[in-house]
């Protein structure tokens, strides 16, 4: 049971966005996709989501080519949280979350509403259910959309949660969250994975990725530079090569803590112009 990209390539005129990228996400695991700006993280996420057809290679969901699945069938099995979402009209928060139920319910059902409320409860927005989306802060809006994609995966719906082969793709889900909410969002994501969902999450914060994900895949210039458990991937030499800055890795000050990374701009003798 995996969502996997095999030797995927994406090109735009004059530039290769992805080259021979292979990546697998298994049910129940949380994989972080990290890398510098422009490395191709969002592009890879879109390819895995089925929103962008790769020029080379294939993407398959539990063995079926993504292209062989209908949009409706796909929507029942994987949910996507993109960056920079804008809702055209002033829906209230509960209605926004209910949109996540549309692959499962033809019409709105009490079960769907209960699930949507539970998802809002999970992300701490239950009291905001009746508010218009535009009245929320950026961080709250992001969490409302998170509740929507949880709902799409059958969150709090006993019948839907039992299904194997569900995947969640998150593009920088904590970009607008304060430190406390960053941790709680990742905790919710872990909770979803604990119910069998395979999660791929684009993150910029390597410490957060190391602390909350099973595996890290490092993308650099459209290629996978490294992939594996956080402690083996977060090596100073690799980080310096990929991010172009001086890196130092130590451990959190508690036992078996995840690796922690500190960065410093590379300073070579005579390079300072100040």
């Amino acid at each position: 049971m995996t969502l996997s990209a095999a030797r995927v390539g994406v090109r735009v005129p004059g530039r290769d966005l992805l080259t021979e990228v292979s990546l697998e996400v298994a049910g129940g695991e949380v994989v972080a996709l990290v890398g510098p700006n422009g490395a191709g993280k969002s592009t890879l996420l879109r390819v895995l989501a089925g929103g962008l057809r790769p020029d080379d290679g294939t993407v398959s969901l539990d063995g079926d080519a993504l292209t062989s699945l209908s949009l409706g069938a796909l929507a029942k099995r994987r949910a996507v949280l993109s960056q920079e979402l804008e809702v055209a009209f002033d829906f209230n928060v509960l209605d926004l979350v209910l949109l996540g139920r549309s692959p499962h319910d033809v019409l709105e059902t009490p079960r769907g509403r209960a699930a949507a409320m539970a998802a809002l409860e999970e992300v701490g927005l239950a009291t905001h259910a009746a508010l218009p989306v535009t009245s929320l802060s950026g961080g709250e809006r992001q969490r409302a959309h998170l509740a929507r994609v949880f709902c799409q995966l059958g969150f709090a719906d006993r019948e839907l949660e039992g299904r194997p082969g569900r995947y969640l793709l998150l593009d920088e889900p904590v970009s607008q969250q304060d430190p406390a909410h960053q941790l709680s969002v990742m905790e919710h994501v872990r909770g979803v994975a604990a119910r069998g969902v395979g999660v791929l999450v684009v993150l910029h914060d390597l410490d957060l990725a190391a602390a909350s994900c099973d595996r890290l895949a490092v993308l650099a210039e459209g290629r996978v530079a490294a992939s594996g458990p956080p402690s083996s991937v977060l090596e100073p030499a690799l980080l310096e090569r990929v991010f172009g800055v001086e890196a130092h890795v130590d451990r959190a000050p508690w036992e078996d803590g995840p690796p922690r990374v500190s960065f410093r701009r590379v300073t070579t003798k005579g390079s300072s112009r100040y």
Partner: protein
Amino acid sequence: MTARSVVGVRPARSPWRIGLALVGVLVLLMLIGVSVGAVSIAPGRILALLLEPLGVADGRLSDAERAIFWSVRMPRVLMGVLVGGALGGAGAAVQGLFRNPLADPGLVGVSAGSALGAALTIVLGGAFLASLPSWVRPAVLPLAAFVGGALVTVLVLRLGAPRGRAAGLTVLLAGVAVNALVGAFVGLLSHVASDAELRDLTFWTLGGLSGATWQKLAFVAPWILGVLVLLPRLGRQLDLLALGDTEAGYLGLRVARLRVHVVAAISISVGAAFAAAGLVGFVGLVVPHLVRLLVGPRHGALIPLSALFGGALLVGADAVARTIIAPAELPVGLLTASLGAPFFLYLLRREVRVP
């Protein structure tokens, strides 16, 4: 954790309750619509007139009253309900389709196409019309307007969405370009038109319900009612589209197919409305906005309630148009545009306000 209280939230109003209120307003305005005009019919007589065909005789009714009520006022008011309903419902759908509260059914080319059909008939159809049997002649202009609206819409879809890969922006841009092109043709036709033809064309463009007959009503009702029954079923899909094409696709929506369905439906209902009443402007733009303020943006409720509101608005506006300079009457499109345009500007100022 920010603990924001739920106090101060607009109360969630039930769409059913608002629908019921709108039906009430519509019926009231229809009653006013059949009673006012050059000859007014007292409200008490209307019931008698309605009951007479059912066998309840009322000796006080005159033949003139019967004729005005059944041949002039009733078809006119019913036409107002249909045309306003078509425009209101289509406006709600087209705004959802383009994710833009300032979109108007005319954007997809229906109004320009209808105008071209009408202009061709009025300016170049003289000899052709004369060759037709007299009972066919009144049907030619509406038919030409209807077909013109449909054809230009197909053209917009073809150009803006090749092979069904409809992107919202390209359809919109194709609509703008085709509208300009078709507008130039209509301009050319009005340039070569005689004074009388030009006057006919201008009046048609202003829109009005004065030509309403039972035949016309029978011609447009199936199209408009059919579309108004089907459109709300696309409501949930239009709701998904509010998230954008990509996100809606992730939720299983076949965006390009929805776009074709909605545009086709609109070209049918609005084309029929324009065919019967000319280019009644701004109803499709303004009405969905007001209804959205009342019931929120969910299209399943927004589309039917916008249709009801549009019907009520047009019947009301027509009653005003008939009485304000009686015994003459204003083209109702003039009234809706002169009320609609300032409202549009007000909306524009609100939309561009930095949040």
